[in-house]
């Protein structure tokens, strides 16, 4: 059955697809670092990177070379295996969720073959995403503990408490979405949001579950350790937080994993709430252009939505000051979780009323 379906061509297809997705994610994350510098520069009335290449476009490469060239230091009394494992785990976990995202509709060729643009269509896709999110904190915690540094340890504890607190609200906001769609498969969730207007109401989930979207967005900030919730790397209190002791490419991995997570999270938010690869007038376009081209347009639409969210993440970072730790906990436990529960109740009541 599910294992018997595996043939050599199937495996090769999936490997190629996974390689393209990972390469693409790395490339976008690379330029997200450049975009972050440019966005911060614009918001603070500066010019940002301008020297390396036109508009500083080669800056990410220059940064990469710089990271490679730095001396690699492993603290003497640290746990060396875990010290190396920390940044590696952060990187792996950041890339893992991309496996279940439907990047576009099946690519149908003229000779009748079709090529799925999703690495794995598992029927618990949303739970898989949630599972990967819940593993995200290990990279930070292990690296922090293995550094054998007080500030790193404090940062690791902060990260763990923060991640666990915000996972709850994140999961609860996902539950109301699942109650509405009736499926945990990301493929089903996207195809239910087909087009933009389903005759009675907007088909995108953000118009049906605005509160769930808001909670999901706030929790994503916390899970990503992004400002205003970057308590784990709060430099005014903890030096550099969990990556205080890291240097060279291992530091680069930590910093880079954050941008990859940001990209993947943006794609997931677009998929769950903003219709994924669907866009207004897609049926009309599907009749006009050949099928493979249409699939590519759909992928580009999804990427455009994701880049919009990446920019939003950046605007927030350079606008809102960092929370205090008690404020963070109060927001999570006393505001977001009750709100998500109320949203769940309302969703259930509405579904019961209309399905009667």
């Amino acid at each position: 059955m599910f294992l018997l379906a595996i043939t050599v061509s199937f495996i090769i297809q999936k490997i190629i697809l996974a390689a393209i997705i990972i390469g693409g994610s790395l490339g976008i994350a690379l330029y997200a670092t450049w975009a972050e510098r440019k966005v911060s520069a614009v918001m603070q009335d500066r010019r940002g990177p301008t020297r390396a290449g036109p508009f500083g476009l080669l800056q990410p490469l220059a940064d990469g070379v710089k990271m490679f060239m730095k001396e690699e230091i492993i603290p003497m009394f640290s746990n060396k295996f875990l010290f190396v494992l920390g940044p590696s785990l952060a990187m792996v976990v950041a890339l893992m969720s991309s496996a279940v995202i439907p990047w576009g509709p099946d690519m149908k060729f003229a000779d009748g073959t079709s090529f799925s643009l999703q690495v794995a269509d598992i029927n618990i896709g949303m739970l898989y995403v949630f599972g990967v999110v819940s593993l995200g904190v290990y990279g930070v915690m292990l690296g922090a503990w293995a550094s054998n540094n007080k500030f790193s340890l404090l940062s690791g504890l902060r990260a763990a408490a923060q991640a666990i607190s915000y996972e709850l609200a994140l999961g609860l906001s996902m539950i109301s979405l699942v109650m509405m769609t009736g499926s945990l498969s990301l493929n089903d969730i996207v195809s239910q949001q087909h087009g933009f207007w389903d005759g009675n109401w907007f088909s995108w989930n953000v118009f049906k579950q605005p509160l769930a979207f808001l909670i999901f967005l706030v929790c994503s900030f916390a899970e990503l350790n992004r400002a205003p919730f970057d308590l784990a790397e709060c430099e005014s209190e903890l030096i550099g937080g969990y990556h205080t002791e890291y240097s060279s490419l291992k530091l680069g991995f930590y910093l880079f994993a954050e941008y990859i997570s940001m990209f993947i999270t943006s794609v997931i938010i677009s998929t769950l709430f903003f219709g994924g690869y669907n866009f207004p007038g897609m049926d009309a376009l599907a009749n006009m252009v050949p099928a493979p081209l249409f699939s590519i347009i759909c992928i580009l639409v999804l990427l455009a939505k994701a880049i919009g969210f990446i920019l939003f993440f950046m605007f927030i970072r350079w606008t809102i000051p960092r929370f205090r730790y008690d404020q963070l906990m109060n927001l999570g436990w006393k505001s977001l979780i009750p709100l998500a529960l109320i949203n769940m109740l309302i969703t259930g009541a509405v579904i019961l009323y209309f399905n009667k």
Partner: protein
Amino acid sequence: MDIYQIIFWILSIFTLGCAIGVIMSRNPINSVLFLILTFFSISAHYVMMNAQFLAIVNIIVYAGAIMVLFLFVLMLMNLNSDTEPQKNFLIQFAGVISGGALLLVFVAAIKSTFTGLEGKTIDLSQSTNIGLIQNLGTMLFKEYVFPFEIASVLFLSAMVGAVVLGKKDKELAPTE
């Protein structure tokens, strides 16, 4: 030996190796990490049986939440070989006795479970959908709804207990 058996044996050896690593490692942090690996390989066994929901919930709940808390506590205690508590002979003796008794109970439980299971095994090479979320949900909310709800009351009482414990600490704190 077909591919399922090969995967099964590799996974089983890996699982048992990690489980032995949990009790053999001197460093508690390594123990926890081995335990996380054990949970992952048990989840892989669930996937082999096409019980995807069980597999992912095992990872979310155990690897994603409970083990993070374990690590949290261990990191706060900062255990290492210097601060390892010295156990006297009596405590070690009691540990051996109670551990042996627990093993006996487990072996007896497994033995009684295995009798009468002959017709209920899952053939991994055959299609089985019993573990998919739709079937699981239907079973839970139709046939087993009463024990399911009772279990939720149990969790609620655990939560209330945790809140009570947390509150007590606050009242005992010196008033400044």
